[in-house]
């Protein structure tokens, strides 16, 4: 995904067991922080033509 231009911090992978509540909350917080820093995603978003753009 990064090869085609997605920012490095946009996509995250993690392996968390159902018993690892703390790890889950840590990872979730890290992900949201990193994504917030990047701002809204503009790539791979499908836009339909509107009256203004046509």
């Amino acid at each position, binding site marked *: 995904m*990064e090869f085609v*231009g997605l920012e490095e911090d946009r996509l995250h992978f993690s392996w968390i067991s159902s018993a690892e509540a703390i790890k889950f909350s840590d990872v979730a917080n890290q992900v949201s922080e990193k994504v917030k820093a990047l701002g809204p995603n503009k790539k791979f978003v499908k836009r339909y033509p509107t009256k203004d753009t046509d």
Partner: protein
Amino acid sequence: MDAYTDKIKEISKKILKEGKVDVVMGFRKGTLGYMSEPYMAKSEKDAENLVFDCNCRMNLVNYLTNRKDKIGIVVKGCDSRNLITHLIENKIKREQLYIIGVPCTGLADKASLLAHADGEITSVEDDNETITIKGEGFEKKVVKTEVLQANCKTCIKRNPVIFDELVGEEVPELEIENRFADVEKVEKMSPDERWNFFGELLSECTRCYACRNACPLCYCPTCFVDESRPQWVGKSDNETDVQTYHLLRAFHDAGRCTDCGACEAACPMDIKMRYFTRKTIKDCVEKFGFEAGMDLEQRPALDQYKINDPNEFIK
């Protein structure tokens, strides 16, 4: 190349006559001078039409999927690797096949041939070193290495991996300095540059699916793009839909693609979609040390687990 053609005809007639095969899959001259088309010879008489030259850009393994009859098939180095993949994936049985191997010196790039021609091309002759382009009122000789298809310039296996009979002496394999220079160039760009690069690359795509139809790996009974329940990807030529299609196709081919170049050769818009598949090949080689279709005994990279598989992307 005439020697190859003669030998292919000779072998085909022999195996058809002996009843070893029901049909021989090969190539015949196309209606355009710079194209040879896939052809199925069912009798000794049909076998007279078979040819082999630098215009045989399609990968005939594409037509083998799930066939039940006995087949003779003409394969180049890359095609033979796809044949191995087909055998591993149980899409055809070895006993059904009589494999006619062609030691390949590369295929000519359609666009380069057209650029060299001073008018309509009526014939393209290839003697493995020089290509003679003929048309109305002109005849031009070009060095073969100058008009090779991009994938043939970085080819790692010109001689067939698997065969019953070769049509000529084995050719020396290429020595390539940096096989993935094109992919590395893209990797060095910033994310936004890459995004724009691929946006530009795919801007002409009309979603005709010629690349998918030419690909021997794309044999699913219903392709994900044709499925409507659920509809995985939009069917329009919307930018995001086009990107999704090419990206997902590359993922489906990951660890299986042999870079035969049939997709690019089939594309009517001259789109270089091999950038996607080549990235998957590079990753496979670098991360798993795996090259598709080189060995019948080796399971594909995405089909097996090893304790030392790279996993640094998982936090």
